[in-house]
């Protein structure tokens, strides 16, 4: 049952990603990107990572997509309908990317077998605190990973100041 859900979600992720890359209109690409992000969130639910799935949908499908739409709105509209939307070297680039993905896929397909799924062990580790994924994640974030968490907040502050400065009238 689980594998059918995986195949359905994987088909949605990959097809919407391909449509996003090959779509000529930028707004259509963004819509396909939303579909791909939401499907990846479904994949995270399938992997029993509910909090990460919620963050994925809130941050990616909610925040980043709106940011992209605003920038598409701010830049010139005729630029988004440019006739030549691909580089001249698009065919070698596509072939090389296909070879790269095939190589990585071949390697991981053959060598990932020793990490087998053990549902009982995973349930005890991934839901250690009160049987909840979010509680366990929050406990780890605020005890073992407190310093990286604070550094991430400083990074977000710096990014915010930098974005405001870059978007000013005269840089």
């Amino acid at each position, binding site marked *: 049952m*689980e*594998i059918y859900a*995986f195949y359905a979600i994987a088909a949605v992720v*990959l097809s919407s990603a*391909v449509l*996003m*890359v090959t779509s000529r209109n*930028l707004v259509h690409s963004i819509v396909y990107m939303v579909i*791909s*992000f939401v499907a*990846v969130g479904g*994949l*995270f639910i399938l*992997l029993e*990572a509910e909090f990460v799935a919620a*963050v*994925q949908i809130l*941050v*990616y499908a909610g925040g980043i997509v709106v*940011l*992209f739409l605003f*920038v598409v709105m*701010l*830049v*010139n509209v005729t*630029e*988004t309908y*440019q006739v*030549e*939307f*691909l*580089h001249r070297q*698009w065919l070698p*680039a*596509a072939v*090389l*990317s296909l070879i790269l*993905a*095939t190589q*990585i*896929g071949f390697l*991981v*397909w053959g060598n*990932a077998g020793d*990490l*087998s799924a053990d549902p009982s062990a995973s349930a005890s*580790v*991934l839901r250690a605190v009160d049987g909840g994924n979010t509680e*366990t*994640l929050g406990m780890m*974030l605020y005890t*073992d990973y407190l310093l990286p968490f604070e550094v*991430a907040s400083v*990074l*977000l502050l710096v*990014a915010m100041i*930098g*974005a405001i*400065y870059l978007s000013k009238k005269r*840089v």
Partner: protein
Amino acid sequence: MATLGLNHYLLLSALLFGIGVAGVLMRRNVIMVLMCLELIFNAANINLVAVSRFRPDMTGQVFTIFTIAVAAAEVAIGLGLVIAMFRNSQTVNVDEIHLLKG
């Protein structure tokens, strides 16, 4: 009937990474290049969460949270740069951005 293993997720992530790399190399629009970078980030996130599920170890999910935060910062800075660049040179085509070319 094959069971759903770690290699299924890793293969999907590799394919998504390949599509993202192809998009970065193929598209002319710099906004589109940033969007394809997000696809690559998503492929890395799938890897982290899948390995966290099958090890099993929560650290992968914690790092996914950090990756998403860094991706959000990267998008904010990148789109700020796109706006500044468009204001200066009136283009979002990566071929026409060659100020540093000798």
